């Protein structure tokens, strides 16, 4: 049974009386424990797709099954992380992290203990009681990751989680996320417009067309795990990158001859 199954999903918005189609019959499925990257040009409808899966909006047509079921209340089934860290400024790092547990009704004390046990893994030790506005962008994003993981869902939806970071911080967080995922093996759907990021992290890359989005193709990433930063310059990676670029833009990219 797939963890997420999207079948014939369409979504259109009405804008000043005009109907704007955003998703045009999107279908795909994600297996349990799989890391799938959704890649597409900006504005093609990636966030819309993720919001539909998260249950924040309803599709105009089609169905979205989570763990084989299509429940009436669709929110609260997947952990969700936005491009913005969305940390509450009035809560410390620790109390931000336990937010989903509080929503679920876990007593504060027990929730805090669970969060404290993970502070090292998320590189937040020593900053438990700091307010978000005192932290760097990378640390804030890690705090948001901790909050996402503490939601305790087996399906995690990430909407350009590194989009707002500088290149160096982004690379180091990608390395960190790769090893974190290799340890936790959650089902992850990562939305990104960065080809390298998609290939570096995912098992499969789903390439979308410009708006209205359809699935243009799926690229399996058969790179070995654990993934290492050096891989991004290896011939197989470069070949995949060319293939994905071609699929994204519909043009041929100059490819190095394999040695």
């Amino acid at each position, binding site marked *: 049974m797939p963890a997420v199954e999207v079948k014939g999903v369409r979504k259109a918005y009405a804008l000043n009386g005009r109907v704007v189609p955003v998703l045009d019959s999107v279908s795909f499925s994600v297996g349990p424990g799989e890391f799938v990257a959704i890649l597409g040009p900006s504005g093609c409808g990636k966030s819309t797709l993720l919001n539909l899966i998260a249950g924040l909006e309803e599709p105009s047509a089609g169905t979205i099954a989570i763990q084989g079921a299509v429940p009436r209340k669709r929110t609260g089934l997947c952990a969700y992380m*936005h491009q913005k860290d969305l940390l509450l*400024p009035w809560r410390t790092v620790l109390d931000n992290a336990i937010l989903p547990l509080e*929503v679920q009704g876990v007593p504060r004390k027990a929730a805090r203990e669970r969060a404290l046990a993970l502070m090292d893994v998320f590189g937040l030790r020593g900053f438990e009681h700091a307010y978000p506005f005192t932290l760097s962008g990378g640390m804030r994003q890690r705090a948001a990751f901790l909050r996402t993981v503490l939601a305790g869902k087996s399906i995690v939806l990430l909407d350009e989680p590194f989009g707002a970071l500088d290149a160096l911080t982004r690379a180091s967080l990608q390395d960190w996320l790769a090893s974190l995922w290799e340890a936790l093996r959650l089902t992850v759907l990562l939305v990104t417009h960065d080809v390298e990021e998609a290939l570096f992290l995912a098992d499969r890359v789903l390439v979308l067309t410009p708006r209205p989005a359809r699935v243009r193709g799926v690229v399996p990433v058969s790179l070995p795990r654990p993934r290492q930063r050096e891989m991004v310059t290896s011939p197989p990676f470069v070949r995949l990158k060319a293939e994905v670029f071609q699929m994204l833009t519909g043009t041929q990219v100059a490819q190095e001859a394999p040695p």
Partner: protein
Amino acid sequence: MTRWVKERLNEWWPPLALMAGALALWEGLAHALAIPRWLLPPPSAIVRELVARGDLLARHSWVTLQEVLAGFAVAFTVGVACGVAIAQWRVVERGFYPLVVASQTIPIIAIAPLLLIWVGYDIRMKVIVVALICFFPITVNLVDGLRSVDPDLVNLLRTMGAGRWKVFLMVSLPWALPYLFSGAKVAAAVSVIGAVIGEWVGASAGLGWLMTQAVPRFQTPLVFASLVALGVMGIALFQATALVERLLLPWHYTMKRQEALKWTSL
């Protein structure tokens, strides 16, 4: 502690210096031009009046203070309830909110005599006038705050499975608290005006009433002494609200300070 004193001094010396200068000028001119007491008493005469009539002023200040505190409390309770209802239900927003705004165009001074007919001379009339004046800034600021919540934040809570009221309690309300306090500070500052208007229209005690008694007798120093008492009361109420804000929202206070420091240290 010493740093705190230094910072307060830094903050307070310009207004204090300005006031001291103005008072000195006033004092000098009053003597130089031999202005009669009943027309414009010099500051020294007002201070003497404050001391000599201390008991009288304290008694009437206490009456006014009670009206102000009760009125503020009523306005705060009703204002928060209305603000929450306006922000949570579109029906209330569309039906009630325009009326709240429109009601502000009716001058309080015109309503006060009606209240006199309806509820009489006792403290209730003054409490209602104060509440009417304080209600608006509290409600409007709270509604603005609740409306300005980042929708992405609301969506985040929804993905966690939070319902409408959990979202409200965990995100919207804390988000709007700094706005609520802005409104409460404005309300605290104008609350004294409400009490004085109420007392002018119908009362038998209070600083406003004391002024209405002193004016026809040309007891101008007493009028000024009452004004000083009213001013002190207004400032104290404002500062008390600011203090509660700082205690309840330490994160907001430090964030604002940190931002200010970022700018000055460059």
